[in-house]
């Protein structure tokens, strides 16, 4: 592992993004290190790399701009790559630097039939909601369908996305999760948080506007 990657990894372990943003000014290799950390064996670090890329995009959009095409490509890589965390990274980049992604929500919906990418794509839609309210409202019907998934993580991610979009049309789908006691882990505020799906759905319901 390179010294730079080790250093960036260390900052992510302590949840401290400021030194990463300082480091990138002197060494642009930090961007590559963060992309690499999107595939780290440690799940929490993968998510924190997502957060760091979002903050980097906000602070240095010029450095994040070339990543957008690369991350989109990795979602459809025919040569053996799997962008496990590319959708969340795009979501976070779009949240902090909306100018870098145009018409980005509809393409993410394409990945809702990819089992390996589904939960991450839903999470990304949720993160994009404040920056792209109209676009994310358009995809509420597709996202709501994911509340019927067999995978609790997908149901919880769909609930998170629907809550973030805040469209009243999601009420029926979210209400349908009211008795869902399956545990599901989502990334929230820099931590991996496990709650029952019904709790994730309850929080989402409280964020809905009147239909």
């Amino acid at each position, binding site marked *: *592992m*390179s010294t730079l*990657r080790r250093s960036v990894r260390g900052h992510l372990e302590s949840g401290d993004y400021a030194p990463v943003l300082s480091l990138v000014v002197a060494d*642009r*290799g930090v*961007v*590559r*290190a963060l*992309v*690499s*950390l*999107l*595939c*780290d*064996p440690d*799940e929490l670090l993968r998510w924190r790399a997502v957060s760091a890329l979002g903050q980097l995009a906000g602070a240095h959009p010029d450095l994040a701009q*070339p990543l957008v*095409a*690369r991350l989109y*490509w*990795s*979602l*459809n*890589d*025919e*040569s*053996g*790559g*799997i*962008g*496990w965390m590319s959708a969340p990274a795009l979501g976070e980049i779009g949240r902090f630097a909306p100018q870098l992604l145009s018409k980005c929500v509809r393409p993410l919906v394409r990945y809702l039939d*990819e*089992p*390996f*990418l589904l939960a991450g794509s839903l999470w990304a839609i949720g993160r994009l909601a404040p920056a792209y309210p109209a676009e994310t409202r358009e995809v509420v019907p597709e996202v709501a369908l994911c509340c019927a998934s067999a995978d609790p993580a997908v149901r919880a991610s769909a609930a998170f996305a629907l809550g973030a979009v805040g469209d009243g049309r999601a009420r029926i789908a979210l209400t349908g999760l009211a008795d869902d006691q399956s545990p599901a882990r989502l990334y929230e505020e820099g931590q991996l948080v496990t709650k029952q799906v019904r709790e994730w759905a309850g929080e989402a319901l409280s964020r809905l506007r009147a239909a």
Partner: protein
Amino acid sequence: MADHVHKYKTPMLDELEKGPWPSFVKEIKRAAAKRPMAEGLLGQLERSYKDKQTYWKHGGLVGIQGYGAGIIGRYSALGTEFPEVAAFHTVRINQPAGWFYTSKALRTLCDIWDKHGSGLLNVHGSTGDFVLLGTTSEKLEDCFTDYSNAGWDLGGSSSDMRTPSCCNGMARCEFACFDTMALCHDLTMTYQDELHRPAFPYKFKIKIAGCPNDCVASIARSDLSIMGTWKDEIRIDQAECQAYIKAGMDIVAEITGMCPTACMTWDGKTMKINNHECNRCMHCINFMPKALRHGKETGATILVGGKAPILEGAQLASVVVPFMPMKAPFSEIKEFIQKLWDVWGENGNNRERIGEFMLRVGVGNFMESIGEAPNPNMVMHPRENPYIFYEEYFEEE
């Protein structure tokens, strides 16, 4: 095996079993006696031959948690018709340097694959990996766990450093100018993150050849070709030259007359070589290995930018460093690799190989960006267009 009744009729594939040559159809049929996936493969392949088109499609992403590469998702476009191969993913296993295996290791590899996959192999893929053909998404994690527990790891794929590969060099070949396998192993272990976690604009292949014969075709197949060479003079054993004469060799016709740079002479008694003109074609050394040997001051020539055609046409790699010492811990080449990755990693476009990047920015700019001095040997011929002016002219004004 012979009385196994195949599910699908394969008249066209059956033709490929005829004749004295080994037949992949025969091998797939053998596997099909035990594995339904191989049976399905026969059916789909026959259909492809009939319709003259492939029915494999890239239908989705699959992988191992903690890795961003190493598994290639493959799906059949005729999954309903051939359900056995509806999902038929490829697993790349990082091969040992020089492709040396014990029979026990091969058995372990195959036993695990029999348990989790189709039993079909591609040994080896052009990347160098031990390639396992055909498994399903559900079996991937267990398959990986078994390989990992047996001491194997995934190879590269996607926009990462692909699994480095090398010729078997000093283990079997007297022409090897450095220990290719030691370098290959060292680079593989040093760059585990780059191998498993794609972070580059596109793929980056490293191939290592022990001498200019380049048996692994590194110059045509890799972004970074590390090719053995020597700095000093070709060693000549005049007595052995005489032995070749006695054995019937016509040295003038077969050796010195064939020299592409005409740097050799043979007067009937003595072989002379003007080493400054030697372009390392290896013809004389290959044909008179007892009489001629490469020099003692050995290392490697570093070439960058080779690739097969995908986005742009095929390119041979260009010499960037004419000579670099190649001894453990290989610090110089690692420093060089890091410079390449920094420049290309930050400035390369998405899906742009480093050779295409060099063309886009110009070889001069590329050399400057990686801190290497241009070498007159890189110039194929003098400029033809008198309207090109160099920066120096402007500076003089």
